[in-house]
């Protein structure tokens, strides 16, 4: 089971991806001929104005949404729907309220047919990883928002995905919890060596966590931009290069 890392490295290749919705009888092209190469083990952040299609792209990658045309390949293999190689962390924790923290984290493993003992063992490991060992027996309603989100992260990690897909996972958290969780995500990413694709509306978060930032344009005619974040991990938010990069990116967005 530790062999997963050697099967593939979690490379994602997107070719000519298009997706449109029909909204009030009108066609809305959300993604148009998108090309993207995500390296195995890379952390890629996706930013862009509201409604530009970040969530849509992530859902297509997760297999929860079918593209109209184009191709998604994972480690060279064409992707068909949801798969055991990816797991999703949603904006809300989406925990099952009738299960304890332990059973929630084990849920993904159990539905994939892992035996209960093995599922528990792996779930416990991931619960420790997110620092909730004392809360194994608690129910979701007894957790704070940040704790619930950490359970969601543990659940996604427990199935040992090659690719983690995160849609504004920290968007609903307060500023303090958010900082802590960003550090935890950075640590988990380094330790687990997964590919991480993270949608966020927080530029600082993108710079803090990602190797590259994909900027989806507001105007669908424009081309998406890829920005390399060439700073060593773990990152220091107050270091001059970090601050300079943040300023440059914000200026690009018309802020400041």
């Amino acid at each position: 089971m530790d062999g997963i890392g050697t099967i593939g490295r979690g490379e994602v290749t997107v070719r000519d991806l298009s997706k449109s919705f029909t909204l009030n009888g009108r066609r809305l092209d959300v993604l148009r001929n998108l090309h993207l190469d995500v390296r195995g083990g890379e952390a890629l952040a996706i930013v862009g104005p509201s409604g530009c299609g970040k969530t849509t792209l992530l859902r297509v990658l997760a297999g929860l949404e079918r593209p109209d045309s184009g191709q998604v390949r994972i480690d060279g293999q064409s992707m068909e729907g949801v798969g055991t190689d990816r797991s999703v962390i949603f904006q809300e924790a989406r925990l099952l309220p009738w299960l304890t923290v332990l059973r929630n984290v084990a849920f993904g493993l159990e539905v994939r047919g892992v035996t209960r003992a093995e599922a528990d063992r792996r779930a416990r490991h991931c619960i420790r990883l997110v620092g909730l060992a004392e809360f194994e027996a608690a129910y979701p309603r007894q957790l704070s928002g940040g704790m619930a989100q950490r359970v969601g992260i543990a659940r996604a990690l427990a199935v040992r995905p090659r690719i983690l897909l995160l849609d504004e996972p920290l968007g609903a958290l307060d500023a303090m919890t958010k900082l802590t969780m960003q550090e935890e995500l950075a640590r988990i990413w380094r330790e687990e060596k997964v590919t991480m694709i993270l949608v966020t509306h927080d530029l600082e978060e993108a710079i803090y966590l990602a190797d590259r930032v994909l900027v989806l344009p507001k105007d669908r005619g424009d081309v998406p931009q890829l920005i390399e974040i060439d700073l060593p991990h773990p990152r220091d938010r107050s270091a001059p290069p970090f601050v300079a990069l943040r300023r440059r990116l914000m200026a690009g967005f018309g802020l400041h």
Partner: protein
Amino acid sequence: MTYQILDAPALQSGGASSQRADVLRRRRAGVAFALRRYGLLAGFLALWQIGAMLGWINPTVFPPLDRIIAATWTGLAGGALLDDIAISLQRSGLAYAAAVGLAIPLGLFMGQIRAVEQALDPILQFFRQTSALALYPVFILLLGLGEASKVFVIFWATLFPILLATIGGVKEVDRKLIEMATSFGAPRGTIFRRVVLPASLPSIFVGLRLSATTALLLLIAAEMIGANKGLGFQVMNAQYNFQIPQMFAAILLLALLGLTANAALVWLQRRLCRWADLAR
């Protein structure tokens, strides 16, 4: 360090005397709770007893409680009322079990498949609005005046609350939870068993409890027409013969039956849906 100073008195208060005070305080709180909850009921019963004894209320219509309890005891000890309880339980239990057995699976199925639900909903709403009591004569015509029509009218009345509550529960399951399970590759059957079913359980219980009350209501109505046994029959029969304490004995037993059924369902609900109570 100021914290420790603030905490100090609380730390010291762990002695034996304070423990005794604690027990006393808890006991007093228990008494206060019992008074708040059952005080009014006790007062009402006391007023009845005293009023009937002193002639404030007509004791031939409202006999004193001790005579009602004595009549209940005689009926139970002599076995006369036991037969009635048994037959009443059999009628309502059979009908209720059949309604549960049909309504829950059907509701789970209908709630999941939109087309089925949409096609059947108008009929359901129509049937639901048609009082089962109004249909009782029709059932008697079809099934005769025997057991079948009695059981069927209770079945009919209990079916719809459970069915509608189940459909509602399934339809209101959070789509986001289903999507979460899908994202882990859970097949449909697993999603149903592990997400849809537990999520709709609290709603199903609302239907079950509503129907339990309805079952007893219809039981009495059904037993008042063309029956010669059962608690509902005993109420009518005792009234005809002007055996007022016996009439109240039957009413008392019916109330206890209802309370017991509800308590059993509440207990079951607590066991199965403990998570839903946590927030309250």
